[in-house]
């Protein structure tokens, strides 16, 4: 459904995306994961026909995004990062306007159908200007759904929503993703893990890695990190922990705690605890820390190029 080949986009001297290649099949939800400024929005704007690439090609629903832009735009539903709404229109008027631009025969029925999909049918006649951020986000999503597109491209669809709404929107997206193609961007790792069949991690305009969430997780959980805190001075603690079998790295944190890492499958925690107590320290706390997104990026960008190719 989406085939991207060597896509490159320069903004003046700055290269926003660099030689991106990936694809997405029908019935697949693909997550674009990366920090702000990684090139997610730029890629999406090219795929939706908003701007042409500097180099490379992209096919969406079988049409070239540059040569057959109008055909692509007919088949794509797009929710941009800044939700494009007219505050002086009611939700229903807005959706009817978009439906008529998309040549849908019974605009009113479809507008209601879309509003139902995002649970806003009771606010159909309210002005969009009076909506909360979460409601605006949902109207934007309704707009992207109105023509039942083959491909749905969503730029940060859950941003600004409260937890209950996030669950709702995720369900809507998952439902759509069963038979259509969804490409969504996020910078929240858990979101990508929960919603997507496949995750593309993008950083500085390049795809760092591409995998299913399960594989990604198991690759990332190749090691386990634990934070340890003792009462009083922690001098000499590092040396003790380093000696324990299985411990790979030990690091003192400025707040006095110590963080150590050991390989998966060789749980070093009992030995570390024993060593700490035997050393006369009073153990206050020992808890595992998850890898933050930044750390995953560091982790992944540290991997050598062969590793990336293998994935």
């Amino acid at each position, binding site marked *: 459904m989406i085939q991207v080949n060597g896509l490159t986009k320069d903004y003046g001297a700055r290269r926003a995306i660099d030689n991106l290649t990936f694809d997405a099949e029908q019935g697949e939800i693909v997550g674009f994961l990366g920090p702000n400024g990684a090139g997610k929005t730029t890629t999406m704007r090219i795929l939706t026909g908003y*701007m042409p690439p500097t180099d490379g090609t992209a096919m969406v629903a079988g049409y070239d995004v540059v040569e057959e832009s109008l055909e692509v735009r007919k088949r794509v539903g*797009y929710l*941009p990062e*800044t939700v*494009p*709404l007219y505050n*002086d229109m009611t939700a229903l008027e807005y959706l009817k306007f978009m439906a008529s*631009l998309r*040549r849908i025969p019974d605009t009113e029925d479809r507008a209601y159908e879309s509003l139902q999909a995002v649970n806003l049918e009771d606010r159909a006649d309210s002005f969009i200007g009076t909506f909360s951020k979460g409601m605006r986000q949902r109207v934007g999503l309704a707009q992207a759904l109105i023509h039942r597109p083959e491909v749905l491209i969503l730029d940060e669809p859950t941003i600004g929503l409260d937890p209950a709404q996030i669950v709702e929107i995720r369900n809507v997206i998952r439902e759509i993703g069963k038979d259509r193609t969804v490409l969504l961007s996020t910078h929240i790792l858990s979101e990508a893990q929960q919603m997507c069949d496949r995750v593309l991690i993008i950083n500085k305009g390049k795809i760092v890695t591409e995998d299913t969430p399960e594989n990604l997780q198991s690759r990332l959980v190749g090691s386990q990190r634990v934070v340890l805190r003792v009462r009083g001075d922690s001098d000499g603690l590092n040396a003790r922990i380093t000696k324990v079998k299985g411990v790979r790295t030990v690091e003192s944190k400025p707040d006095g705690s110590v963080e150590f890492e050991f390989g998966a499958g060789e749980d070093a925690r009992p030995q570390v605890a024993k060593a700490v107590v035997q050393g006369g320290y009073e153990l206050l706390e020992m808890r595992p820390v998850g890898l933050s997104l930044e750390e995953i990026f560091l982790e992944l960008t540290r991997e050598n190029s062969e590793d990336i190719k293998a994935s």
Partner: protein
Amino acid sequence: MRNIWIIAKREFDHYFISPIAYVVAFLILLTTGIIFAINIYYFIQNALQSFGQVPDISPITGAFGFLLVLSIPAITMRLLADEARMGTLELLLTAPVRDFELVAGKWLGSLLFILTIVAVSLVYPIILNGLVSPGIDQQLVMSSYLGVILVAAAFLALGVGISAVFTNQVAAFFVTLMTFVFLWWLIGFPAQVLQGSASEVFRYLDMKTHFYDSLNLGSIKLADLVYFVSLIALGLFVGTTAIETRRWR
């Protein structure tokens, strides 16, 4: 073509909830109304002396043309600049709508709004027709009003084009106003100073001459029509190109 109409309709509807649109409509109708009243009063006062002369519509349409110079920048400034600022341009540029259809739709929507004001101002010739026996010069009314509509259509097209270049409404307003001042007044001066064919060229470019010296006097000439249609085409071309350029940035 249908897309142009859909966009035009939304734009037209928007004017009726926009304070600027009401201010513009009010000022145009108030000013032309005052001129109309003074005109009638003058003719009644001098009815005996000015035997053989009848009041006509040209002072009102003449003022109307001038008022368009000042008011159309306020009507067109937000058309595309505001879409760009609000992010809704992204919506329209990723909808299956050609760039030209978007620009033409905006132009048509604003033209329909001005035509509504023009339609209201038709009460003046109707009243005048009732006051004068055996009625006023119909052809003059037609050509004067055609002139007003053509001036409006050309100014609106240029305004839409300039609005497409800017993200800031205020910038769009001043550049549009400056362009109009140039086309309406400044460009006429070289025509007076220069001689020969150079003078003719500037004379042709001067919008005033096509309106005051021609349409507003009752003559409909091909040269004038070509002038206005060219300006409309130029404005829409500038707008479409600006939108296309925006994509490549």
